[in-house]
């Protein structure tokens, strides 16, 4: 297991000794995790390994039974959460709720909180430039609940970037998105990361995308089974620890570092 020491002031996120119990089950048992500023860190693990629980703790949605979470050196609280953007797993939306993309984006923008009284053209002036290079214009009139998986995730990224967050948390962001949509989503994240020097925590079980984009990987299965660079973590022994005995990664010829696991998508 590789280990790197970080200076606290250089960390966007620091988790120490995190333990979480859901009912009788302890789903996270002593998690230590560091996210340096401006880097993409991935958390991988099989279903039920505690990835989403970990992310819910980072967002203050789940109370840990022990341990410490610090964002930008400060304890977790509403103030420091203002510096965080969050892209959830695909939302299960009620199609009868007619919130349009324009209205959805206006909900978070401070200047357009009272969007209901605003003219469409005035709202558009404020929303322009939310996701430069990725024109959301054609989607603005569409109901959020009527978007395709890939479109919805692009809109959620734009929403999460409102207020210029310094840390982006992505929870299985391409679950239910088709392969081309998945690729363009990760390209979007990579370009946003480059342009804004964001710190990113990517929770995923899509190993090929993690390999391509993350600078550091934590393999989780209740505990951190292994951590390190993608090359270090994604060898068969490390992944077998996280995913269990039957895991056998294999390589394709179409592109460097392109790892797949049957049944893991991507």
């Amino acid at each position, binding site marked *: 297991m590789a280990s790197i020491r970080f200076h606290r002031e250089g960390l966007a996120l620091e988790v120490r000794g995190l333990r979480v119990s859901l009912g009788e089950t302890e789903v996270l048992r002593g998690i230590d995790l560091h996210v340096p500023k401006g880097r993409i860190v991935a958390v991988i693990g099989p279903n039920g390994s505690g990835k989403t629980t970990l992310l819910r703790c980072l967002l203050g949605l789940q109370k840990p039974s022990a341990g410490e979470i610090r964002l930008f050196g400060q304890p977790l609280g509403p103030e420091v959460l203002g510096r965080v953007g*969050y892209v*959830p797993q695909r939302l299960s939306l009620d199609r009868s709720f007619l919130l349009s993309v324009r209205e959805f984006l206006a909900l978070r923008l401070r200047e357009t909180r009272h*969007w209901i009284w605003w003219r469409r053209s005035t709202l558009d002036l404020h929303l322009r430039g939310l996701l430069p290079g990725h024109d959301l214009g054609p989607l603005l009139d569409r109901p959020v609940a009527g978007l395709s998986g890939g479109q919805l995730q692009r809109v959620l990224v734009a929403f999460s970037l409102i207020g210029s967050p310094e840390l982006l948390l992505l929870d299985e962001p391409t679950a239910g998105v088709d392969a081309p949509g998945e690729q363009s989503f990760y390209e979007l994240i990579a370009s946003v990361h480059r342009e804004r020097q964001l710190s990113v925590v990517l929770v995923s079980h899509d190993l090929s995308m993690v390999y391509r984009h993350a600078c550091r990987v934590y393999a989780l299965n209740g505990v951190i089974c292994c951590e390190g660079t993608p090359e270090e973590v994604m060898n068969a022994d490390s992944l077998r620890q996280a995913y269990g005995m039957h895991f056998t990664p294999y390589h394709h010829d179409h592109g460097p570092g392109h790892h797949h696991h049957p049944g893991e998508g991507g």
Partner: protein
Amino acid sequence: MESMLIEPYMQRALLIAVLLAPLCGVLGVFVTARRMSFFSETVAHGSLAGVAIGLALGIDTAWPILGVSLVVALLVLWLRENTDLLTDTIMALLMSGFMAAGVVGFSKLRGFRGELHRYLFGDILSVGWPDVALAGVVCGFVLVFLVTRLSPMALMTLSEDLAHVSGTSVRRLNLVFVVLLTLTVALSIRLLGIILVTSLLVIPPATARNVASTLRQELLLSLVCGLLSGILGVVASYQFDLPCGPAIVLTAVGLFLLSLGARFLRRPARLSTRP
């Protein structure tokens, strides 16, 4: 028409319809999107126990109806947070328990059997000035709530997690919404009756959705449909000597059918693509 307006009981009935029916329309957009229709049913049916308490004590039933409705609503929230019971189970348990208590209370009261019908289906004669005053106060609170908290409310309806990350205290906002919804439902019982009160939270938003394409349009149209249903229903109740609740509901259903026709004419293909 003029004779209708000089009757004090009609003035009160129309006033309370103008105050509460549009509120039901707007709150209903969130109630239906958050799948809380059964919650409104629970509160309304449970309030029968409040009616029995009011009649037994010989006081204006408005206060015990409000009190019992709030107790039922807060019990739903408390049991949901502090037990492993499914929300549906909790609501069915409280609805049947409080309603059974109300029916037992009525069975022990002498001379009030006829009252039961009025509370079950609504009666314009039963609206008093204290009801109008209370409706005015609740209307004011709901309007302030909607004007100041519409964005967090819309975001919470879409995703509670996103609302939390965006700085909304989801628990507090949910509590305020539930209390205001409960007060609106409890006060609307005079006009619509216990059995039918939820219909004004469900039918106007459904009508609006047939023709709207944004949340703003949906809220506005639902408000207008609620208002029209309330006023036309009360007028029909007076003119044709109909029970008030069913008259309002049938008006709302009529508007829904009109909107359905409009939707067929505007975009016939969309009906078949909806799940």
